[in-house]
């Protein structure tokens, strides 16, 4: 199989890019793929703590891109999930230390050893973004159901198209009861506005905080709604058929059922 390079990006920061990268990477590895996740947010390293691998860093992505070490030295193997590897960001450099050429060269090297290369891009559309998408074949844009994050997502989607990369979108942190009451944009609204293919829908989930606290990947937390959503997204990415996009639902009590029926009649 030809290796696939997928960049995870967003316009606005803090919408869950790193969590999504860690979760999709881990889920793809659980599906039996050899996966490397790369933290491209130079100077603001984060993916390592989310994956609980912060104590094992020796070399980083800048070392590898600038040919100061081998792939086997830079890629940290996850001990809980077989076939999951992390290449951490450098914490001491700034974003100008990498060039698109050096990133392309590095990814070509990684393609020989992995099935999936998942790149966690920094927020925004500066130099770091350019480097992150330089070698990507596919991209997933993360947004939350709020106006500012969707507007910024639109800008990034435009830039991805301009670079001949067709983006898909994940709507993160959906609160089903607010969507039901009309106080949160539904995913249909968002797709209406953005006209882009949907990769998946992820509900708001307290387990995300707990997972980040402990460094235990979300997809390994039993009963995590967000974790399960990312597992489905990864399966779809992996080409599995019959995994429809699941719309997050509110577990209905009596009041909600009455209220729901009520609002439908309107």
């Amino acid at each position, binding site marked *: 199989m030809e290796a696939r390079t997928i960049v995870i990006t967003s316009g606005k920061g803090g919408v869950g890019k790193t969590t999504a990268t860690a979760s999709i990477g881990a889920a793809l590895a659980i599906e039996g793929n050899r996966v490397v996740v790369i933290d491209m947010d130079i100077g603001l390293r984060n993916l390592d703590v989310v994956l609980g691998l912060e104590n094992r860093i020796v070399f980083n992505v800048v070392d590898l891109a600038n040919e100061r070490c081998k792939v086997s030295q830079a890629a940290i193997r996850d001990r809980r999930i077989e076939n999951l590897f992390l290449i951490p960001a450098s914490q001491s450099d700034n974003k100008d230390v990498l060039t698109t050429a050096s990133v392309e060269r590095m990814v070509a090297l990684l393609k020989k050893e992995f099935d999936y290369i998942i790149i966690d891009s920094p927020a925004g559309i500066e130099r770091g973004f350019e480097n992150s998408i330089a070698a990507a074949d596919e991209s997933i844009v993360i947004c939350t159901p709020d106006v500012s994050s969707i507007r910024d997502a*639109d800008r990034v989607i*435009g830039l991805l198209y301009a670079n001949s990369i067709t983006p898909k979108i994940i709507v993160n942190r959906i609160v089903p009861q607010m969507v039901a009451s*009309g106080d949160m944009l539904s995913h249909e*609204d968002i797709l209406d*506005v953005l006209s882009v293919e949907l990769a998946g829908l992820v509900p708001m989930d307290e387990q995300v905080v707990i997972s980040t606290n402990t460094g235990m990947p979300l997809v390994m937390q039993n009963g995590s709604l967000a974790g399960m959503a990312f597992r489905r997204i990864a399966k779809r990415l992996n080409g599995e058929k019959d995994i429809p996009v699941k719309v997050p639902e509110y577990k209905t009590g009596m*009041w909600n059922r009455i*209220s729901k029926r009520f609002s439908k009649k309107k």
Partner: protein
Amino acid sequence: MFNHMLQKITGRSKSSGNTAKKRLQFALVYDKLEINDSTLTSLQNDIVEVISKYFEIDTEGIQLELQRDNDVSALVFNTPIINIKRGVV
């Protein structure tokens, strides 16, 4: 939830989600029409170059702007003409 029902009963049902969608659609259209000064300047230079083949114009009096209304947007170019160049092309 009870509040929500009350709202429905009293007919004060203004969902903020709908407001968000309308504001977003407007913002995105607006964003796409934004043009930066250097693009506008080079556009103006190109237009002047083409027009100058046929007209003698007063380059001091040129106005180029993007006008936006709720429904339509227009690029408006205004220039004083000093003379028509005869016998070109």
